[in-house]
């Protein structure tokens, strides 16, 4: 297992190096430079040139890439050109919001998706199956951005049940521990803060969960249908095991392998959806930061963001791979 993990980490390093080289070259090839966003319209050409020169943007691209690598080797992401803050600090401030939102969405998707998919499979051909399959089809069809906007208009603006924006109410007094507001509220006993954070989280999390929920329902349904037809399930049934034992030990345990894989992949892709959802709900995550960094050609911020997301994505998939061993003893034996 250790050798496997080390091998995967080495693969990750090579992949990241290639990724940074490609993206760095691509960003630099894009026309326009950050000086056009950082300075006002009527800044003189001389001032723009001065800024480019002082930022080192007039150096050859390979020199700039070398400096970038040297910085990364020192765990220094550089500083955002637009905010003037270290990229690492910006990410540390904003990433917890995105992680919290993604986790909440995944909790909804998994919490509802697996039981719904199981029930749909168990009652195949009934109205419940039909509703689950149609609902999941709808879930994958509605763009997140649109769903988020609709949820906001109905439940925040018209009904006034939930807030339209932010992670906490204005001026909320809270203690920062992990950056995840709900968790922090629970850890510190500030339950009012936790509840406030939950209220702010509900709508964006529902919006963001729509696609993973739909996918998990369909995968679970298909996977359970596959497994219930297997001989070992029939045997378990024949030897008189309790239905709950058959469900837990024989059906779901085997059906979970493809579901775990898809959850891992979905967690990574949730980040893309989070960018859109965050902008609708002004959720303060990496969404607006990345959008701004892109339009402003804020190279250090973009590279930092991509590195973190790439690591995040690969680590999740590594965890999923490793979890196979827990779910399926046969995988453990082979390794």
């Amino acid at each position, binding site marked *: 297992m250790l050798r496997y993990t080390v091998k995967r980490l080495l693969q990750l390093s090579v992949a990241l190096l290639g990724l940074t080289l490609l993206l760095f070259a691509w960003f630099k090839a894009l026309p326009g430079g950050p000086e056009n966003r950082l300075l006002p319209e009527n800044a003189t050409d001389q001032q723009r040139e001065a800024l480019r020169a002082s930022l080192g943007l007039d150096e050859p691209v390979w020199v700039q890439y070398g400096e970038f690598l040297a910085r990364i080797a020192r765990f220094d992401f550089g500083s955002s050109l637009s905010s003037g803050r270290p990229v690492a600090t910006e990410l540390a401030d904003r990433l917890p919001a995105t992680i919290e939102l993604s986790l909440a969405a995944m909790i909804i998707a998994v919490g509802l998706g697996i039981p719904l998919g199981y029930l749909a499979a168990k009652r195949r051909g009934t109205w419940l199956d039909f509703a689950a399959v149609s609902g999941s089809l709808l879930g994958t069809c509605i763009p997140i951005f649109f769903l988020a906007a609709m949820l906001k208009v109905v439940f925040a603006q018209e009904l006034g049940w939930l807030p339209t924006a932010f992670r906490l109410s204005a001026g909320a007094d809270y203690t920062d521990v992990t950056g995840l507001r709900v968790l922090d509220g629970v850890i510190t006993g500030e339950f009012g803060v936790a509840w406030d954070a939950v209220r702010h989280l509900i709508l964006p999390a529902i919006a963001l969960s729509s696609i993973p929920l739909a996918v998990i329902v369909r995968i679970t349904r298909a996977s359970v249908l596959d497994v219930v037809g297997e001989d070992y399930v029939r045997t378990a049934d024949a030897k008189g095991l309790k239905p709950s034992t058959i469900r837990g030990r024989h059906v779901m345990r085997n059906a979970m392998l493809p579901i775990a894989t898809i959850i891992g992949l979905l967690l990574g892709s949730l980040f893309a959806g989070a960018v859109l959802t965050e*902008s609708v709900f002004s959720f303060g995550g990496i969404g607006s930061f990345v959008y701004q960094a892109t339009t402003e050609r804020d190279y250090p911020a973009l590279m930092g963001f991509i590195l973190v997301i790439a690591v995040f994505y690969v680590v999740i998939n590594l965890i999923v791979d490793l979890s196979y061993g827990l779910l399926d003893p046969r995988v453990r034996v082979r390794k």
Partner: protein
Amino acid sequence: MAVGLFTACGSDGDSGGDADTAEDFDFSCPERTDGSPEADTAANESQPFVFGTPGDPTSLDPVLASDGETFRVNRQVFDTLLDADCTDTVPGLAESYEQNEEGTEWTFHLREGVTFHDGAALDGAVVCKNFDRWANFTGGFQSPNFTYYYSSVFGGFAENDPAMGIETESIYEGCTADGLDVTISLSKYTSSFPGAFTLESLSIISPNSIDAIADVELPAADSPLPEYTQTVGTLAGTGPYMLEEWNHSEQQVTLTRFDDYWGEPAKVKTVIFRTISDETARRQALEAGDIHGYDLAAPADAQTLMEAGFQVPVRGVFNLLYLAYTQGHAPLDDHAVREALSHAIDRQRIVDSVLPAGGMVATQFIPPSLEGYSEDVATYDYDTEKATELLAEAGAEDLTLTFCYPTDVTRPYMPAPKDIFDMISSDLEAAGVTVEARPITWVEYIPATRSGECPLYLLGWTGDYADPYNFLGTWFATESTEWGFDNPEVFDAIAAANTEPDEATRVELWKTANEVVMEELPGLPISSSPPSIAFAPNVYPPDVSPLTREDFSQVYFTTGS
């Protein structure tokens, strides 16, 4: 020695949204008609006033910022020597000022009894300490990334760092103090003064703050901003509010009332600025009661908000949108062609259908509230027939022009670039011109226009302070590829006005410069329009400012609905 005059900003006309030209529109600051509704004293003490901003501030050190969102926060906390009411220069920390005849010595008489939030007292020596600090910046502090406005106003620093690329010499010669009197000496006059003394970047900070950060270095232009600019506790100003917290992860800045403020104390105890970058999300947050006001409302939202009982006070105008004719592209170097294009465009339609209430057709390249605005400039009224005739006379009947517009921004002077482009294009095509659209993202747009790539393009500017050079000078002071003309008459007229220290003479010279520019017709001034700001029904809003210099100490919650 000339004495600085402080004139009150008055209103002498109707502020209604239907009036559209300088003659019949109140372009300065409309008189308030909302009286002084009763304050909800309990709410003002217990409830924070939350204002939605389009972006985060960048630095709590005013001199290290050049963006409007930072200015919005810092102007509540710090004061400048002079202030702006509408576009007039009025007292700030200085009750009055004098300049010598050459305009090279500016003497300010400071208010008595002004204290900083940390208890330090304001006097002339403190002002000098601030000016000397700025002038002696080194390393990355000199980068236009951080000190754009200081270097723009004063040219450079005591010792320019070659790595920062600034090649012009500083015109700041020194500062002398005598009690509450302080004199700033310059090597030459420019018309940036006294307006530049109102710039938020030149706010005065406490001497204790300067001592505390004396050893802070900023080695390079891409170094992170020093920690003291990102957290509260180091910098103190003299403004009506003190910095309480800057929560980066929640994207909010919290200010609390300064009880020993030298002016009228703030009505609301706590003000919070929260970032909501999407303009629709800002409107929704206001409608749902999550915030109490926001800036840069979409023009299309203003009417809806007002009908729902929200307040959308109309700012005066202090910006300009123009259509540039780049003369490097024939036949735009032919005056008759430029004149024809100008007659082809129905600017009134743009103002009526795209711009917010308070927008007006522009006749020249400065807004009407500035000194030197001329009533005698050549005008080019909408007349498609005349445009067609002029094009025929110039032999340009089959004219095809590439027309650039930005795709990913709205600017305060240009709320809907694509809509404005569409309207102008259809007008030009009605006059027989074939338009080839060239949409460009903003980071590419400025270089494209600067390099002269775009025969026609939309651009503009919002003034920083009351100075015609801030408009005319940056566009037409010298020959440039973005305009592509070489007319010494224009350049000389602007130079003459910019270097004339006598106010009355300077006003006349600016008028002449405007007339000369509009004879040359390097582009067509399209409009001046105020960016919209909105407030909840139960809020008494601040006086809205053409320079977007709203003073939030005036805000309070009312007992009304």
